[in-house]
């Protein structure tokens, strides 16, 4: 049995202390016209480094850059594509976090890398963290094409069709996945929370996933080691579980916080792909009992392909205060120890 401790995505950009508010101050300074892009980048780098250090200190094997640079999970990617402008605020699913909605004016086109420099910075930063094990990796995270399409507004004729928007975003993200592989990424996480709310779009969703799998396969042919993990969260995973587990991805991340029956579904049906077990609630401060989560993990592991799983939060941790986000990460190590009987 293999249990890998993995972060799921975002991490708080700030904390309560003055030192941890560097990015908040920098953005406010830019808004006031007192600071420039270089000072903003310095603050982003500083807080990205802190996010990486805190994940490493918690003993995680697979870390992210905390998505510190992301204004939100939607506009950060879509806003960098030609043909897309960023508009007003909308609530992000059932969170009390708001994203800027992309408005598609013409077919979205990727003119430059979206996240490659973020990945490179995170990898170099991780390498500089003292004493980190050689096996520890940085995992880039992308919001998937279907979710981007679902959360975008289209004003032109062609792009009014959801499938056309999703296909355009998929083309851009497939190129990004190839570039991330070329830059050395070995695992890329693709987030598709929207599909849990719109099962009727299954065909559009799977069609938009196909170019990403093709990009992965092409990267492998170029000699890269690359796995794609699909993550779904922010709603009940049970109704779509069987379908999701059958997708051409190398791992499936699930949010166990919405429906207590998800564990039974996985235990009963098993999984043909390794699972990222989101058994630690990324949306509530209450700390889970390590023994209880370990029991559930131990129940599920034998039912998962290769008896291999990632253990992590149910979603990114930006929805928690920093102290609680850190506590959730530290909890993962305690759970693994309990699973291993230590």
């Amino acid at each position, binding site marked *: 049995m293999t249990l890998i401790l993995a972060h799921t995505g975002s991490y*708080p*950009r*700030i*904390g*309560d202390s003055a030192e941890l508010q560097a990015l*908040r101050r920098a*953005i*406010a300074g830019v*808004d006031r016209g007192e600071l420039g892009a270089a000072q903003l980048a310095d603050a982003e780098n500083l807080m990205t480094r802190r996010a990486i250090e805190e994940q490493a200190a918690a003993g995680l094997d697979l870390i992210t850059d905390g998505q510190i640079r992301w*204004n*939100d999970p939607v506009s950060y990617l879509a806003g960098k594509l030609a043909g897309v402008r960023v508009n*007003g*605020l*909308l*609530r992000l*699913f*059932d*969170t*009390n*976090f*708001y*994203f*800027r909605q992309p408005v598609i004016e013409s077919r979205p086109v990727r003119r430059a890398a979206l996240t490659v420099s973020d990945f490179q910075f995170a990898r170099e930063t991780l390498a500089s963290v003292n004493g980190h094990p050689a096996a520890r990796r940085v995992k880039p995270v992308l919001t998937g094409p279907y979710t981007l399409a679902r959360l975008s507004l289209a004003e032109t004729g062609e792009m009014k069709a959801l499938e056309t928007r999703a296909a355009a975003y998929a083309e851009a993200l497939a190129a990004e996945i190839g570039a991330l592989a070329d830059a050395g990424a070995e695992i890329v996480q693709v987030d598709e929370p929207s599909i849990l709310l719109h099962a009727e779009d299954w065909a559009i969703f799977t069609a938009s996933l196909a170019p990403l799998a093709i990009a992965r396969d092409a990267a492998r042919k170029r000699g890269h080691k690359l796995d794609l993990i699909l993550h779904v969260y922010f709603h009940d995973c049970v109704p779509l579980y069987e379908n999701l587990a059958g997708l051409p991805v190398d791992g499936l991340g699930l949010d166990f916080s919405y429906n207590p029956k998800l564990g039974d579904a996985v235990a009963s049906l098993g999984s043909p792909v390794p699972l990222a077990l989101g058994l630690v609630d990324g949306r*509530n*401060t*209450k700390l889970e009992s390590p023994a209880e989560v370990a029991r559930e993990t131990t129940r599920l592991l034998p039912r998962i392909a290769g008896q291999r799983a990632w253990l992590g939060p149910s979603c990114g941790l*930006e*929805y*928690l*205060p*920093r*102290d*609680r986000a850190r506590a959730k990460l530290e909890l993962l190590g305690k759970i693994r120890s309990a699973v291993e009987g230590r």
Partner: protein
Amino acid sequence: MNRKKLEKLGLHLPLFPVTSVGSFPKTDEVTRARGEFRRGKISAEQLEQTERDATAFWIAKQEELGIDVLVDGEQYRGDMVAYFAEKLPGFTEGGLVRSYGNRYYHKPIVTGEVRWTAPLTVEWWRYAQSLTKKPVKGMLTGPYTIMDWSFNEHYADRKATCMALAGVIRKEVEALIAAGCKIIQVDEPALSVRPEELPVAIEAMHRVTDSLDAYFITHACYGAFELIYPGMLDLPVDNFDLEMSNSGLDLLELFRRHSFTKDISFGVVDVHSHVLEDPATVRQRIEQALTILPKDQIWVDPDCGLKTRTVDEAIAKLKRCVEAAKAFRN
């Protein structure tokens, strides 16, 4: 418009009454005083005096602009949920979490039984009302939103948390009514976050408002209303205050398919943009509302609270609302 109820309450409002959603930007004096208070340089009494002065400024400004139903401007509040959580036993202050962009708030944590032990807003309402003859709204955050915007480490589930909070908010409503408040707004911006929980929000609002003698408004914004409409009309309030402009008035299409049966406070200016709408744009929004809604159902206001704008921007946007309403009255 629920004119009968308003008249019965002694409220004689013009057509297209102008109001605002609740918060105004903190004046420079309040911002400075809050900082000094945090650093221990001034006392709580000195901070409160500054907040009272700022409240008086905003009441006078609303009267000067010609607003019909006033708010106290919430100079003494930070976040709309944290304000209540700070005062109610059962809550613990959480650390900062991001709301959007570079905006953060202290998200409360329910760590014990939530109880109402004393009025939370009544003295501020009483003070604001003492400064004007026009009606001042009582401003509360609804139980579903307080539940949804808090972490829960105590109650068994979301519904149990929500219903406990509904009992608390009802007590505050009763206290406001006893003090003479006739229009009470119970904000539920989280209303649409989990459409399957709409019955919980409705049940909670019944606990808050049933058999109480006031005109009730609820404010909701930035949500997926298409998922809860028309079911949301079962919420036991008289008036829905809705963010309309930020979403390009797309809610009107829903109202076209199924009649909007309540009064509406129709958001005609975007509160998250520095750009001041030109008068024609605002008038056009009301014209579009009138293609679907009877004129005596419509109130006019900004999309949401104006606290994220500067004082000058907020005043300019309120002025646009008043000008547009007056144009249609005439």
